[in-house]
């Protein structure tokens, strides 16, 4: 177990594993996502309340789901960075943050567009949308802090502290926003809360969530490899690898 753990910390070892994993992640993710989306767009039955606009759910929910779990993953990596000083963990935080920000933006954007036919307005200060907006702010903070500190080591550790502070705050923000929401506008009907979703609706949803997960894995591998190539550029194996890859 511990040996595995230490191996996992070695950038070289990770690089090889990622190389082998990436085609599976990309193609598996693409197939699952496309299958889920085509199913959801063309074959899933119409929602009796919201009509066809509900089909946005098949990208809205995966984006929102990923956006939140990417932040949780970053927090786990941040703990590993601070406690074990594992190089790969902070490489992950740096690599994942922009992807998480894009996914959060997508969740916000699709939520807003969905709001137009459902609520008749582009933006409502609905609890979910608002806490998504705050999550986007948190991502921006992480990216900005990472970019502002030029020294790699202290940048990684400062970002790790910020991510951890953020993750402690996420549940507090979520609950306070929900409470605030019920205070200001009672009984608007929620976007994604269905009493019981028929199986033809949640199965494609499940497929697209899984697909997007795999695609995120691919993004993480690719961007981590790039980061490793930059950081370890003085090592012998990276020099050899760079010579080979360019040809």
């Amino acid at each position, binding site marked *: 177990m511990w040996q595995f753990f230490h191996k996992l910390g070695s950038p070289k070892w990770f690089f090889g594993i990622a190389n082998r994993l990436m085609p599976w992640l990309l193609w598996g993710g693409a197939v699952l996502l496309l299958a889920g989306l085509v199913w959801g767009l*063309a074959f899933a039955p119409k929602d009796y309340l919201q009509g*066809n606009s509900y089909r*946005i759910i098949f990208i809205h929910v995966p*984006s929102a789901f990923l956006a939140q779990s990417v932040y949780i993953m970053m927090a786990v990596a941040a703990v590993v960075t601070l406690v074990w000083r594992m190089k790969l963990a902070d490489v992950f935080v740096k690599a994942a943050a922009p992807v998480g920000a894009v996914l959060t933006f997508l969740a916000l*954007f699709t939520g807003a567009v969905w709001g137009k036919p459902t609520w008749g307005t582009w933006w409502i200060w609905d609890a979910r949308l608002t806490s998504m907006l705050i999550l986007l702010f948190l991502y921006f903070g992480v*990216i900005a802090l990472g970019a502002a500190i030029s020294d790699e080591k202290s940048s990684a550790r400062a970002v790790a502290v910020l991510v951890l502070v953020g993750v402690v705050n996420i549940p507090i923000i979520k609950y306070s926003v929900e409470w605030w929401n019920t205070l200001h506008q009672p009984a608007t009907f929620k976007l994604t809360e269905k009493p019981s979703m028929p199986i033809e609706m949640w199965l494609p949803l499940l497929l697209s969530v899984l697909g997007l997960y795999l695609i995120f894995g691919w993004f993480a591998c690719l*961007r981590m490899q790039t980061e490793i190539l930059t950081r370890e550029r003085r090592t012998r194996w990276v020099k050899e690898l760079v010579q080979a890859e360019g040809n």
Partner: protein
Amino acid sequence: MAFDSLTAFIVMEGHGPYVWTCYGVFFLLLGALVYWSLLQRRRVVSAQRRDLARAAAGQSAAPRAAVGASFNRVHESQD
């Protein structure tokens, strides 16, 4: 199939513009992210190949090559 015809599929009873905008932006942004990530990767690799070539070019230039390497780092986006 939940729709009778292709036109019905595209119009989606008036909700088409919303649905298709969302899907369009989704794929556009994901595509942009793929492109950007691959571009970053290619830039890092080519910059390092340049450094290695420069370092191999001459022994006298070796200390300068090290300076060049750290200079290049500023150019590459670190995030």
